[in-house]
């Protein structure tokens, strides 16, 4: 069952006379219980997309079109009161910079209490504390964290606190924006396995926004590859990473060294990201693509289905190649 459906989402930043297309006609859907990795390099629009869905972008400097339907309600247009209700109870977020994601001059417990009371105004202190300590236990945090200030915790502990906070109301959708990026290998490994364990006990649909393919490979079922604000490929992680159909995905996978197995030659993708305020005509990846043809440079390919789920936006996808 579809829990979230993004339809033709466009986000344009307006900076003076410049208009930067950060997210460009992206559509996809997530089923309940899915874990979806959204992968892209810097400038791919992956974080912007999440911010747009959460309605966190300043409307004075951004223009958003399209829809983000959560169980039949468009998050982009739903009225503010309903949005407040949905926030955190239905959709929660974990940000990358957990160091700054809580107020530095208030105790952690106090902030948890206030957030809990946003949706449960009558909850008692004791009740909240019990609930929070249970969550702390789930993410391997000691109960004493409740009485500490954020600066008294290490990066790993803060990230765990943020995860505990996001689970406060058992949200239906959990968005993790580079939530493990700043952490050390061991801590990242620990947190990823904790998340996977958690998901066995609570039903949650997870969106993992990251630049790290290996994080998606270890922790997600489905993957979206974004480049320059556009959707390049979407499908099961297993299919996409083992058998990438879009040249960009292929390049990304081949430039990623692996820890085990044969040392295959690493290849980089030549060139760099196009200027998003003045994107090239045709396929956005064409200037860097080894297979680009005149058709690619002239016309933008629509995402094409390879099977029921697997989609790639490339003219080379079977059935997509038209006679030139």
């Amino acid at each position, binding site marked *: 069952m579809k829990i979230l459906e993004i339809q033709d989402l466009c986000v344009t930043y307006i900076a003076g006379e410049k208009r930067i297309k950060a997210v460009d006609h992206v559509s996809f859907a997530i089923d309940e219980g899915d874990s979806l990795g959204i992968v892209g390099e810097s400038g791919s629009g992956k974080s912007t997309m999440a911010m747009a869905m959460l309605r966190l972008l300043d409307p004075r400097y951004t223009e958003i079109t399209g829809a983000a339907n959560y169980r039949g309600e468009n998050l982009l247009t739903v009225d503010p009161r309903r949005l407040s209700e949905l926030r955190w109870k239905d959709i929660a977020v974990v940000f990358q910079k957990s160091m700054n994601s809580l107020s530095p001059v208030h105790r952690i417990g106090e902030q948890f209490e206030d957030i809990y009371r946003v949706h449960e105004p009558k909850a008692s202190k004791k009740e909240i504390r019990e609930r929070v300590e249970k969550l702390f236990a789930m993410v391997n945090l000691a109960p004493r964290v409740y009485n500490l200030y954020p600066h008294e915790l290490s990066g790993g502990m803060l990230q765990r606190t943020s995860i505990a906070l996001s689970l406060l109301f058992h949200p239906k959708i959990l968005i993790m924006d580079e939530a493990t990026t700043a952490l050390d*290998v061991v801590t990242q490994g620990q947190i990823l396995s904790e998340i996977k364990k958690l998901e066995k006990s609570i039903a949650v649909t997870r969106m993992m926004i990251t630049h790290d393919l*290996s*994080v998606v490979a270890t922790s997600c079922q489905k993957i979206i590859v974004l480049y320059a604000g556009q959707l390049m490929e979407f499908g099961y992680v297993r299919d996409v990473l083992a058998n990438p159909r879009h040249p960009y995905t292929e390049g990304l996978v081949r430039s990623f060294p692996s820890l*085990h197995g044969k040392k295959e030659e690493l290849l980089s993708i030549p060139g760099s990201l196009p200027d998003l305020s003045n994107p090239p005509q045709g396929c956005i990846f064409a200037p860097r693509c080894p297979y680009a043809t005149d058709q690619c440079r002239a016309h933008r390919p629509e995402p094409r289905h390879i099977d029921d789920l697997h989609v790639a936006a490339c003219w080379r996808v079977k059935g997509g190649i038209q006679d030139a």
Partner: protein
Amino acid sequence: MPDAVKAPVIKAVGVKRYYKQRGGSLLSFGRKPRMIQAVDGVDFELYEGEIFGVIGESGCGKSTLGRLLIRLEEPSEGDIYFRGESSKALMKKDPKKFHRMVQAVFQNPFDTFTPNDTIGEIMMRPLRLHGIGKSDEERRAMCEKALEDGGLKPAADFLGRFPHELSGGQLQRISILRSMLLEPLFLVADEPVSMLDVSVRAEIIHMLQDLCASRRTAIMLISHDIAVVRYVSQRVAVMYLGRIVEMGDTDTIIQNPMHPYTQALISNCSSIDPDEDKQAIEIQGEPPSPINPGPGCYFANRCFKACEKCFKSYPPMRTMKDGRVVSCHFATGDE
């Protein structure tokens, strides 16, 4: 041992680096400052044409070690010998000569150059400093050639640009090329690709490999990304809390780590292969503070194998049959 006949290019002997914990003002009372042991006794050798990887988590002292090697900081104890010459003595006698021998590539390419100088000025500066080339024209030609060889064409165009007009990958390549203009014996690369997008990392890695192969420069690659280290380095050292806990042939160590910390580190790495069903070794907590970590093995309190002995004495470095060295009471070398 690779090429035991040859003398090592670099030999580090008992290198330590302590920091005083932030001191008070002039008016503060005479309380003893506590010492933080960033690097706590490190020995290793590096040979010509070798890439040597150093891995570990943040705070393990790998970056401090890098800074010690290029003399951004002085070791509190111990010394590093370059072709048998003491770096301490050399820095006193002829610091220019030292800097020609030892060069560095840093993590953040966007910050490696002064923002107000053109690439031309930036690249010609070291040549001028070391009196290489007779005239500015000659130096300019040298820089142009280096850029062309490094795949940055047209070179003349790049020389006139400012750093902020270039991409991270281009800047990092220029950083490497500039270092190589001095033809150093040894290059420290501290996380050279971690700030770059994945799709351009390979070109930097290849550049380092090519330089190592063609000019026989010894390279130390410091990285938290074990996969990258595996890909480029022949030998690797694993650091934990200022000490090397395991060191040897890269493939041997990654496939069959012997120190419990190395085992945990490698098993926790995410892999790009979704089918890989790995069994991560769970270790508790985070590294203890590097202030007086105690008499026993520094890893003991998190170690899944730890026994009484581990808390009492720090395990010595032992050489195993396959040539690697491990510092763990459980690695006796008899296995």
